[in-house]
């Protein structure tokens, strides 16, 4: 108990003296704060992308593609496979007994970025008549829904800010036809908000095709496995079935991995630099306290108390830097819109950077680790100061 009291006394005394070393201490706080701010920012991009691409997939929705295709744009489902899919008992039916499924075609539209006039590609999705039942989360927030058989499209609300010329009343060209934008829709922040929608029959006739790229179905709760089994009973149709959330995740996998790697790389390199800065600060702190430490040792305080006091100082500075860096990143980056590409052809996906509690915790953990490493060696040096020579030092 006495040892703990001694330690507490030394720690408290040291912390009270911290303002005297404000300059060097600030170096460590800013250094670690900078690292944490950057790491949190990059992780926020990953979190935001995951939030949009992986967490929005609906549990009981399945995407059916051609066997071996990795994305809708490289897939085609022959027309004669469609009734086999729709007749499966695991598919949910609406009040009139019709299967809740949508034959879908995806084609590409060129768009221009508002910020720098560079060109990007977004998906125009042709959806079946059952889309309202399949995707009840789609709501019109401006204008109106497209009418069947007319070259009309609705635009996802995520596209309105980042890209030009997509407000209701404008026109876009694709499939040798001009399409009029008649409305803007929201769909709960999922990847469809970075797409445009129209009727599948209209789109198929514009491109003169008869086979859809994919089929999306609503399944009865828990029926996914059964559905996969039913379809594998028809090997002649060469299909692959995925849960909607797994499909979205696969589309963004490459970019997520790249961003994760970047966070690790930058965080490590900057972290190493921050450690050198932290060592600088802590060695300087110990050197300033040489006489004080020697006096304490002469008085009878054990080396453990000295080590703990230095470590506590280092950890405190590190955590302060971490909190400051995380807070700064949150202030600047949370909910900021970003866009990147997803899928095989690289259609744009617009998402928001998400500085989540998890991301900030990761940043703080990193700051604590940096503080601990920065304080360890100086703490050991402080404990081993030769008392007599230190007392005589000027």
């Amino acid at each position, binding site marked *: 108990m006495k040892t703990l009291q001694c330690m507490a006394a030394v720690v408290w005394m040291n912390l009270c003296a911290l303002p005297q070393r404000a*300059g060097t201490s600030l170096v460590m706080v*800013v*250094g670690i704060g900078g690292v944490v701010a950057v790491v949190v920012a990059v992780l926020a991009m990953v979190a935001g992308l995951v939030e949009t691409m992986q967490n929005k997939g609906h549990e009981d929705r399945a995407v059916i593609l051609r066997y071996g295709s990795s994305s809708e744009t490289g897939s085609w489902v022959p027309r004669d496979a469609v009734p086999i899919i729709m007749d499966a008992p695991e598919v949910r039916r609406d009040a009139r007994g019709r299967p809740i499924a949508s034959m879908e075609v995806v084609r590409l539209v060129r768009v221009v970025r508002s910020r720098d006039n560079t060109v990007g590609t977004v998906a125009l999705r042709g959806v079946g008549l059952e889309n309202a039942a399949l995707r009840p989360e789609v709501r019109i927030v401006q204008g109106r829904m497209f009418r069947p058989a007319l070259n009309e499209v609705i635009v996802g609300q995520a596209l309105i800010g980042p890209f030009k010329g997509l407000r209701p009343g404008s026109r876009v060209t694709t499939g040798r036809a001009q399409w009029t934008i008649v409305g803007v829709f929201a769909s709960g922040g999922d990847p469809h908000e970075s797409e445009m929608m129209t009727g599948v029959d209209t789109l198929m006739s514009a491109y003169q095709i008869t086979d859809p790229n994919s089929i999306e179905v609503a399944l009865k709760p828990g029926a996914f496995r059964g559905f996969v089994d039913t379809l594998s009973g028809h090997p002649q149709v060469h299909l692959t079935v995925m849960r909607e959330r797994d499909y979205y995740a696969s589309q963004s996998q490459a970019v997520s991995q*790249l961003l994760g790697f970047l966070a690790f790389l930058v965080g490590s390199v*900057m972290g190493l*630099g921050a450690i050198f800065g932290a060592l600088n600060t802590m060695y300087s702190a110990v050197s300033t306290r040489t006489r004080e430490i020697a006096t304490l040792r002469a008085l009878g305080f054990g080396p453990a108390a000295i080590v703990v006091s230095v470590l506590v100082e280092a950890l405190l500075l590190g955590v302060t830097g971490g909190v400051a860096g995380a807070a700064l990143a949150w202030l600047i980056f949370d909910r900021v819109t970003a866009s990147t590409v997803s899928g095989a*052809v690289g259609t744009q996906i617009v998402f928001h950077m998400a500085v989540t509690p998890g991301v900030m915790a990761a940043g703080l953990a990193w700051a604590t680790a940096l503080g601990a490493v920065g304080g360890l060696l100086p703490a050991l040096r402080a404990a081993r100061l030769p008392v007599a020579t230190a007392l005589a030092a000027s």
Partner: protein
Amino acid sequence: MKHFILIWAGLWRKRTRTILTLLSIVIAFLLFGILASIGQGLNAVYTHINASELFVQNSIAMANGLPLAYLPRIRKVPGVRAVTSWTFFGAYYREPANGLTMFATDIGALLRVFPAIGMPQDEREKATHLRTALIVSQRTAARYGWKVGDRVPISSSIWEKKDGSRVYEADIAGIMDLSRLGDSTFPEAFLQYDYFDQARALGNGTVHWFVVLIDDPHHATQVAGAIDALFANSAYETRTVNISVWAQNQIKQVGDVQLISRSIVGAVLFALLFLTGNTMMQSVSERIPELAVLKTVGYSGAGILTLIVLEALLLCLSAAGVGLTLANLIFKPFAPIFGEVSLPLPVVLGAAGIAVLLALVSGLPPGWRAARLSVVDALAGR
């Protein structure tokens, strides 16, 4: 320089502190060098190709494709020297994890349009005339142990065949030596287009883009305009750009990489400023009596200021140099991914400029204070 001894002594007064400061600056410029190299590496993806190459794709989206029938018409546009068509194959060998950067093309025309591709004459003949010809780069052949004459199955994740399978059996007709073309950025394999087109179920008669060689780079804009005008208002409108413009746009799709790396570098340098500023200030305030002695001996205020600033410059510039050299070394093993990258002169000059600025900002304030020392007060320790 006699003054150099003073500067050197000043730096090494507190060895640990100087070494740690040096290491921090080295790390900062290492990061700067890495980010600059990545940016340049992404840009370098197509810069081995000179300005005489144009790139023709479908105006709406590359994936929509263009008719192969456009090729003779493009060939006749004034200023065009040669045209070759490329169709992306989405290739992998046995498993999707073994991806290959592969295109379908008229191999004979390709070898004529890109004479820099190294291949023995007999292999060229075979590759031009063999219906099922596949040519691969030396590195790819080494990776899978392929030799000329081998029949290999290449799978496509995009193009299903009429018989329902995805595997195209092709014969290796030649091995490409790509060393003169920027080994890692040129595609590693090409399949004979006619064989591919007859076998595939969809998209027959279309290609993904045309690569056009022109006579005179100065006429690039005119020729591009002429090509696009040929096909305006048709079912497949074209968009013709210079290859580096296209490449930069592709990079922009992924994200504003430049903005991200500049922000990171900015944050790092800001933190570094605190560090070096603090080091210099501490170093000078510890030496007040010594600097006063120097003043007594005859150094002017300006002389003291110069000494301090030179000390800061020596610290920052040498550490920056080490950091950039390390960045260069680190990138050697990554060359296969990013292509041959070395720090371009503008980046090196930029880094030097930043180092100088760092030295001035951290060295001038304490140097100024030292220069205005009152000798008597300083010697007395006030």
